């Protein structure tokens, strides 16, 4: 019997063990990085530690990158400035939709933006009859003429609205950042990349990759933002961290 077994011919239809990603760009295994055709030309985020963790080595083109943050002003502009500035340097327009507060031209110029070329669109200033405020964003993504988009979405956005935007962004050859409230983390999303942002001290940002094409990232990612504080002031933050801890332990004891 043992001699007979090797005599059996190998089944012809036995699948050849080939890596799935070589068969089709949309195929990959759970423990691998998602490699799509667009990911080959991902946009460098400007932060090496973040690039290492993003599929394709940067922010994706032709799809939405969803960022969840508790409130504006924790360093999100400094995080997103490099790809936006790169788009401007390449001669392509950058559009900002529904910024939550007034933008400071001087601060943006210091981050490298060509301020007068930024287009700011307010869609919620007036109630548009029979349409939603995402129409403008969808048009911009669909047109394919915008280099990068940074948009604040209205709270409690329905998943199908986001799916429409995601479909529209297939035409958009560039980064498309949509910023939403932190509570959206519990709801499903159509965008292939979702990050939660959190302040982690002065000039530091903590990122949690909630969703990406590839293995989940358990540990949060701390990155250092371009410093606002001078070195002396930064040292002061170290100094005052200690008493704050003592205060906390004191409260606990009580």
């Amino acid at each position: 019997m043992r001699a007979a077994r090797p005599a059996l011919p190998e089944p012809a239809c036995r699948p050849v063990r080939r890596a799935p990603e070589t068969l089709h760009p949309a195929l990959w295994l759970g423990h691998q990085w998602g490699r799509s055709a667009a990911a080959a030309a991902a946009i460098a985020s400007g932060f090496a530690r973040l690039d290492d963790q993003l599929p394709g080595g940067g922010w994706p083109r032709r799809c939405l990158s969803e960022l969840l943050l508790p409130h504006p002003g924790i360093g999100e502009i400094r995080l997103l400035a490099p790809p936006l500035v790169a788009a401007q340097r390449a001669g392509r327009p950058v559009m900002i939709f529904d910024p939550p507060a007034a933008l400071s031209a001087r601060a943006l110029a210091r981050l490298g933006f060509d301020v007068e070329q930024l287009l700011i669109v307010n869609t919620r200033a007036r109630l548009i009859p029979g349409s939603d405020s995402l129409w403008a964003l969808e048009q911009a993504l669909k047109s394919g003429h915008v280099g990068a988009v940074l948009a604040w979405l209205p709270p409690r956005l329905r998943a199908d609205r986001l799916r429409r935007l995601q479909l529209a962004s297939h035409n958009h050859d560039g980064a498309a950042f949509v910023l939403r409230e932190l509570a959206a983390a519990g709801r499903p999303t159509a965008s292939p990349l979702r990050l939660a942002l959190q302040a982690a001290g002065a000039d530091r940002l903590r990122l949690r990759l909630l969703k990406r094409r590839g293995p989940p990232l358990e540990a949060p990612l701390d990155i250092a933002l371009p410093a606002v504080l001078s070195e002396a002031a930064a040292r002061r933050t170290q100094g005052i961290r200690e008493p704050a801890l003592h205060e906390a332990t004191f409260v606990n004891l009580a």
Partner: protein
Amino acid sequence: MLWIALHLPALSLESFMATLASEPQAAAQRPVALLEAHRIASANAAAQALGVKPGLKRATALALAPQIVLGQADAGRDATALLPVAHAALAFTPMVCLQPATTPGAACDTVLLEVQSSLRYFGGHERLLQRLHASLRPLGHVVRSASAATAQAAALLSRVASPPHCTDLATTRQALEVVPVWLLGPGREHWEALQGMGLRTLADLLALPRVGLARRFGEALLDEIDAALGRRPDPRDPIVLPATFESRLELFARADTTEQVQQGASVLLERLVLWLAAQHAFVRRFRLLMHHEGRGSQGERSPQASALDIALAEPSRDSAHLLVLLREHLARLQLPAPTLELALQADDITKRAPPNQELFPTTQGEREGLTRLIERLQARLGTDQVRRLVAVDDHRPEQASQAQALDGRAASGGSGGGRRAARSTAKHRRSLAGPMPEASHGEVGERPVWLLPVPEPLAEKGAGPLLEHRPLKLLAGPERIEAGWWDDALAERDYFIAQAPEGALVWIYRERWPLSTRASGGNAATVGGWFLHGRFG
């Protein structure tokens, strides 16, 4: 000489269908007929399928097809509808004329154009005909074309069953032989006599002695035959393009909704585009006038006409783009009363070379696309909702950045920025020129990206400010900003960069209250204390 005749056999029916302001697909299924002196003059295919034929009485037609839409034939309306066809022809040659109608009172339905000198430019007779038909297609007319060496021959040949295209005189004369005699204008009067004599075609007439023909049927018949055969000069007056565009469309069914207005306006826009193409021009702004139904006693209160002005950032003659803009503007408009008549006016045009067609996307194509996108957004959201930031030299942070509505020229400026840079003052440019704008201004501290529109008062505990009931740590500062005594917006503040308990950096200030109370008249509730003014995003 090479003449092309464009004959529109169903012009009056088509010009009436345009006034119905309905979808083209729906219009094709709807039986429509035109009345002239209480008899059916023409009927469309849907009406003919129901048995409605030209010549029937009105009551008979209504009995056959109760749902039929009956309109009155209107020579003036037909003439208005024929004019865009002539304008389309003017894009190919300056010598365009209308063939006068054979029967008095009827509207002419044939446009003649002389193209001998344009053949080389347009790549030959075949290619020119193709392009001519392509440019007429948006108008939606049935167009039959014939070519001949003389104008009269082309007009005659365009009415025969299968119009030939003859390029020289010999073939033209040959083709004319089979033309029925009743197509000749004077021949129609003598139709019965000609028929009685067994003379059916032009060849039959030509076989007869000229003197006898002239005596029996008059000189006019011979003159027309000679003009067609090229034996007699046939001078024609070319039509002249009007300097400004104005076209009207009286709606048969009053338009209650903006969609119906838009359907009617799309007809007018196609006419506008052809008028522009005839003079190689692009429109900068146009105006749609809507004449409304008066409402009896309320007629005084409801306006009789409303106008919609549409200005373009980039001159255009793309009918699809113009229609999109018009749709966005119309969607925002509330019609005071049903619309009876539409008129489109345009006089602000610019003449220039047409843009190059590109195989691959280029920066210029992208810039044009962006301009159109911005135009669309402005049309829907309002002009002042698409803005750009302008840095202003002012120490007060709330004054240092101003959002300005994007005007048309700024939108088309693109990233080259030549025109835009020229418009912003030299001062602004200097402040943004280098990566470190404060180099020429002395030391200026860091500014946060986000500025609160109204500074938020902060609670205090001891001497320190609280944010969300937790103390803020002051990290850098103070930076004193004291400016604005000249424009009644005095700011006397000491700014600090502070760290919120969660770790993010905020920009807070303390009002220098003793001076402020003196300046603002002692409103103690708003002066003094800590304020949150910005966040470092």
